[in-house]
Structures are given as structure tokens and as C-alpha cells.
């Protein structure tokens, strides 16, 4: 009897894990999912372990090797200050990954919960909240981020909450739309008719059934957040030097592009492959879960 009891108590937990494993299995069966996941995992591994295997110190200056072409010692050459480009490329994704991987769960949680709540609540609360959401969506995307970074600096304690806040706004809209699709279903009507509380309906009926949409959305937002992060950094509103970052490296190396074109190639390939990896994964995830994100206008 005790066996049966523990079994039943745990019945729910394995089913969730099994589902996630199934999704992962279906994901790697698609070429795009496999390539995408490979790129993402590769970048994560490099980001975690690079400090232990980079060939040089990333801030070591060498005035004798300014803008040097690739040599066996410096495979990707050196930059305008004589620093080793390969070292800086290997280290250059750490900040972006760290910030975005922390900010995305925050984004999805706050945007998702607010959106699902509004979708269920409806009425004047929804009406007013959506006007505010509209107003934030009307702001020119990158500007509030630039202003905040300019005023408060580019520390992670500024970037993470700021990115999570502004990226969460469109998520509210998506979560609310997904909720509207679910709320109309009879099983939600049945739960309402039984008299379940709003919290219980959100937790039991709405969240499990909007999860797929939110996972795809999260993966998609992650690629845009990485794009935004590197754009900020490119524009000089990102990581503080001398910490290496791809966006910043591209911005610096561009100036000498006619003299030393190899300077831009390393960071460009690294950055693009990361974002493409995330995007391919998101795309494959959407196909696996049967969610067509493109049908809904991008916000």
C-alpha cells in the first residue's frame, strides 16, 4: 500500500521530466535543432571553461605587435593595443551569456505571470494594464536601455533587471494571447463552474497549457536579448573595458578594418554563431511543439 501511495504521489513529477526529455529528443531529430543546440552548448562550454585555457592574458598589451596579422603565436592576430584577438574572442561571450541567461527566466516569469493573469482576469484591470503595455511597446526599443545604462552604468545589477523588465513587456502580450486561447476551452469553463479560485485555475489549467508557447517565446526572446546586448555593447553602452566583449571588439576593430580585416572576423563569427544557434533551436522547438510563432505579429 505504501508503495502505491508513494507511486501515486510522484506520478506527476516524472511525467513532466519525461515530457521535457521527449521534447529534447524530438528537437535533436531535426537538423536545425541539432545544429542549433550544438552551437549553443559549444558556446556555453567555452564560456565556462575559457579562463583556464586561453593562450594569453586578455589585458596584456604588446606595443610591438599592434594590429599584427595572424601568426602561429597569435592565430587571429592582435588588436590596436597589441592584445591577442583569439584570447579575447574566447572570453568575449561570457558577459553576454551570463547576463542573458539570468535575465531570460526573470523576463518569462514576470511577463508570463502578468500576461496569464490579465488574460484570465479580463475586465477593467486588463483594459488599463494593456494600455500601459501598449505605451511601453511604443517606446523606441533600445533607447530606454541606453539611457539607463548611460545614467547608472553597465553593471550586471543594472543590465539584468533592465533587460528583464523591457523584454517582459511584449511577453505579457504573448502570454495573454495564449491564455485567451486556453480560457475559451471547456476544461477551463468546467473548472470555473466547479468554483475553483483564480489562482488554482491559473496554476492547474492555464500555466500547463501555455507552457509550450512560453518555452518557444523564451527561446526566441533569448536570441533577441543577445542581439540587444551586443548592440548596446557595440554602441558603447555595454561592458566596461578592458573586459572583452564581441560587440565592443567589433566596434573597435572596424576602425582599422582596411588595415587589419582579421580583427573583425573572429568576434563576428563567434557572435553570429551564438545567436544563430539560439534561433535555430527556438525555430526547431516551435516546430516540435507545433507552435507557429510567425502567425502572430511580432511585437
Amino acid at each position, binding site marked *: 500500500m505504501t508503495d502505491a*501511495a508513494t507511486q*501515486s504521489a510522484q*506520478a506527476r513529477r516524472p511525467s513532466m521530466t519525461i515530457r521535457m526529455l521527449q521534447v529534447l529528443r524530438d528537437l535533436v531529430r531535426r537538423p536545425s535543432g541539432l545544429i542549433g543546440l550544438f552551437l549553443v552548448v559549444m558556446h556555453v562550454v567555452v564560456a565556462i571553461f575559457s579562463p583556464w585555457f586561453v593562450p594569453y592574458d586578455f589585458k596584456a598589451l604588446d606595443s610591438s605587435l599592434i594590429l599584427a596579422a595572424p601568426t602561429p603565436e597569435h592565430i587571429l592576430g592582435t588588436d590596436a593595443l597589441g592584445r591577442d584577438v583569439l584570447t579575447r574572442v574566447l572570453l568575449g561571450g561570457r558577459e553576454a551569456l551570463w547576463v542573458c541567461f539570468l535575465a531570460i527566466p526573470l523576463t518569462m516569469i514576470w511577463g508570463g505571470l502578468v500576461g496569464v493573469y490579465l488574460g484570465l482576469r479580463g*475586465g477593467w484591470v486588463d483594459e488599463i494594464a494593456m494600455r500601459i503595455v501598449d505605451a511601453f511597446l511604443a517606446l523606441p526599443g533600445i533607447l530606454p536601455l541606453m539611457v539607463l545604462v548611460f545614467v547608472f552604468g553597465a553593471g550586471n545589477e543594472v543590465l539584468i533587471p533592465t533587460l528583464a523588465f523591457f523584454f517582459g513587456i511584449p511577453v505579457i502580450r504573448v502570454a495573454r494571447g495564449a491564455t485567451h486561447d486556453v480560457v475559451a476551452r471547456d476544461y477551463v469553463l*468546467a473548472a470555473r*463552474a466547479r468554483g475553483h479560485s483564480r489562482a488554482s485555475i491559473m496554476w492547474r489549467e492555464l500555466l500547463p*497549457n501555455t507552457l509550450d508557447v512560453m518555452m518557444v517565446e523564451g527561446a526566441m526572446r533569448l536570441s533577441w536579448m543577445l542581439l540587444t546586448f551586443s548592440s548596446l555593447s557595440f554602441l558603447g553602452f555595454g561592458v566596461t573595458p578592458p573586459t572583452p566583449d564581441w560587440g565592443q571588439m567589433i566596434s573597435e576593430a572596424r576602425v582599422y578594418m582596411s588595415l587589419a580585416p582579421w580583427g573583425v572576423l573572429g568576434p563576428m563569427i563567434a557572435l553570429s554563431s551564438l545567436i544563430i544557434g539560439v534561433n535555430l533551436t527556438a525555430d526547431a522547438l516551435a516546430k516540435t511543439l507545433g507552435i507557429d510563432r510567425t502567425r502572430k505579429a511580432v511585437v
Partner: protein
Amino acid sequence: MSAPIIDIRDLSVGFTARAGHTQEVLKSVSVSVHAGETLGIVGESGSGKSTLALASMGYMKPGLRKLKGDVTFQGTDVFAQSLRQLEGLRGGKLGLIPQSSGQALTPTMRIGAQIIEALSLHCHLPASECVSRAEELLDQVRLPDVPAIMKRFPHELSGGQQQRVAIAMALAGEPDALVLDEPTTGLDVTTQKQILELVQDLARERNMAMMLVSHDLGVIARCCHRVAVMLYGEIVLEGPSENVLKTPDHAYAQKLIDAVPRIQKAPATPKPAKPNPPEALSLEGIGISYAQPSFWEKTFGKVKQDSLTVEGINLSLGKGETIGLVGESGSGKSTILKAIAGLMPAAKGTIRVGGDTMLKPTIDRRRPEELRRVQMIFQNPDDSLNPRHTVAEILAQPLHLYFGMTGQKARDRAADMLETVRLTPAYLDRLPRQMSGGEKQRVAIARAFAAEPEIVLCDEITSALDVSVQASVLELLAELKLSKQTSYVFVGHDLAVVQQLSDQVMVLRHGRVCEAGLVDEVYANPQSDYTKTLFDAVLEPGM
């Protein structure tokens, strides 16, 4: 006998499932239709009847392919035709009337343009004559105010009108044969009758061959000379309708025909007059408005008071009794259920349960104990069970909410409930997608009864199920009613089903009561004209 118009010989259709394994949808099917003859193809969902109908036009849904066999139309092999020749055939000599014309008419084209297109493709008429010919066709399918209809878009017409347009479109090519794919599914009974009459008249006038696919034996019986019964992609029985429908020579066909509920004109054994049971539910002067005031209307005081969708509903239901609400779409029968459940607040009137307790109009103002006493079962079991929850979790919800049961206790009780609806406890860990429609509906019934309700609201609960499944679900409901002394409010559009289960009946039209009374009396001797029309429109096999 002359050569058949459509002749299907030994046709197999299938798709590649996985790793080269071929799954057959049609297995060596042979049928033929002659001029002036109507062949009925009947079967339950998944029997391959629609695939057969489309294959007769040389068309297969993406993914399907022909494995073997031939389809000939007037002597020419359909599958050997070039695309160009097929285009000339389809909509020309061989017309299709689709299942739901609401979906099948192009939403962005006006009705006139769609018919003129068919005319110009197949009749090569000069443009000037097309318009008058199109109007003639619409007139032929008995549509009113033809010039206005020509200018409308499909969504501006009613379901019956859309179906008539589809028929006119098929007639544009002067067809020798028509394929009708569930032509009246989703239409109200009275409309269904008119459409079938129209099609039959046209077939007679033009001596057309018709292939009519339907799940409804009543429709088949009404129209067809010959019937083929399909099961899992095979024709298990074929012959003249008389023989097939009256004395079927096949176990499945027999079961299918027996499962069709029929109206009992004179009850063989009049139901014994029960001693007056205590009152379980009463509605007094219920009126419901569909127009829910929006935030803006509330704020700016623009609430419309004028139109009540449903008005003047009174009923009194005893313990263990059933009242059937019947009516066509838009009659407000489901709306009344929602008002009782509190999902749609009644604008006026009172709802009482157990003779004393007044129910507040909305759920959030009712106490849990009040909510427990009234439970609802929904039409479509695919939609009423949370796809992410196992049966155990689904059944645990009312148990936890009303009785505070959790863990093993709830699980044991859920297993008991499954047995009450004749499912084994093995179903506890299944997800809805791992069950058939009938099984899902049983789980939904178990969920409602888990609350130990006094009143169960049933919203068309068998209309999404196949006939044979429907029969067993109805049987289950009758049993539960007897053993638990529950009262049902049963909404249905099928008069026979309603009769089978109900003690009282209320006929609704446009949100008003047309007629109400004891089932035996109303069915034996309907008073209002509308009720009579409804009874007239009922189609039953063997009538």
C-alpha cells in the same frame, strides 16, 4: 442495365506511416453508381468514407496515395487523366457538395463571383450571359432575393444558404454525377430536410448519379437507393437500402442500425406515474442577456437593456427526474444551462435548488456547497478535459475542492468513480489523448458525479460521439440517474435521444418557450406548429 457513371474497382488508398510501413485507409473497395441512382456510404468516424468520396473525383488529401485499383467516370480512368483533364472534369460533369460550405466557400470572394467562376470554367459562356445564368442557378436552389445574395460574402449567409450556394455551384457545370460529403452535418434538422429535398428533386430532374456520404443513417435512409456500410476502410455490406437498413446481413451493420435512437410514438409501457418527488431544481422567470456590458459601456453607462436573448423560462424538476431542452441552434438551450451553472448570469428571475436554496446569478457569489450540488458535463470531451492532466488528476479536482480529499484517498475514490462509469482503474494514469471519445466522455461524467451532485447539466453530451458510443453513454446516464437519484437537465437537438432519457421536455425557439410538458404527452400529441415541424423533419432509418 447501362454502364455505371462512377465505377470504383478494387481501390486501395494508404499513406506511409513510418519506416516505409504503409497504412491503408481504403482496402480494396469496389462500388459503382448508375445514372439516376443515389448510393449512400455510411460509417462511423475513421471508416474512410470521406476518403472514398474524394477519391472518386481523383483527389486525395496530401500524404495519401493510391495503392491499387481504378476509378472510372463515364468510362474514363480518373487517375490516368492529366491535371488539365481533371480540371475539366471536376466541377463539370462531376460535382462536389462539401461538408461545411461555411469553410468551403472562399471568404474573400462574393457569392456571384464564385458561381460565375464555375460557369466560365466549365460552360464557356460569354461574360454577359454568366450573370443571368448564375442568378438562374441561385434561383433554382430556392434562395430568396438572388441579386442581393450575388453581392454577399459567404460569411453573411446562414449555414443552410451557404449549402444552397454550394449546390448551385456544383450545378453550374451541368453535372452527370454529384458527390455529397456529409452535406447536412451541422445544419439544423428543419434545414437538413429542406436541403435533402432540394438535392433529391434536382437529381430526379437531371437524372444524376449521386454518391452520398454520411454518418447519419436517417439521412441515408431518406435519400438512397443503395447503401454501402464502411468499417475501417472496408465495405462490409452493400445492397438496396431496404435490405441493408431493415434486415442487415452483417453483425456490425446490425449494431450500427440498432444503436440509432428512434422516437417511440406510443410508449409501449407508459412510464408509471411517480409519486410527486421532492423538488430538486426550479427556475422562475429566468431572462438572460447575451450582451455582456463591456468595461467601456459600464464606464460610460451605455448598457443596453432592451434585448434579452432568453426570456420567460420557468421549470420545476423533481429529484431523480430529467428535463430535456430541445431546439435548433440559437434557441438558447445551452444558454439556460450556463445560467443555471452560473457561467452566464441571469439578468432576472430566480434559480432554486433542493426546494429552498436560492442560487446567486454568478459563480463567485455562490458558496462551494451550492456549487457542488450542480455539476455540468460538456458537449465535446476533447475540449472538456485538460490535456496536460492524467485521469487521476482530473478526478481529484472536485474531490479535493469539495471534500478536501488528497493523495491516496483521492486516488482510491477516483478509481471508484471510474468503476461507476464502467472504466477500469487502469485508466487513472492515462492522459486524455490516450483515450477514445467515448472513454473521455465517461471520464467527464465521472468527474461530474465525483462531486455527488443533485443536479447534472448535460450540454449535447452525445452529439460529438459516434452512434454506437452514444447508445452506451445514454445507457450509463440512465443507470446513474436511477442509482444516485440525480436530476438531469439534458440539452439536445436529437428528439429521440431526449425522449429516451427525459420525463419532461421543453421546446425552445429564439430564446422563448414554444411548448413544455411531460415527454409522453408532447411526443404523442405536439401542440405548437413549430414542435410539429421539428417532428416532421426527423429522419430515421426504416421510416
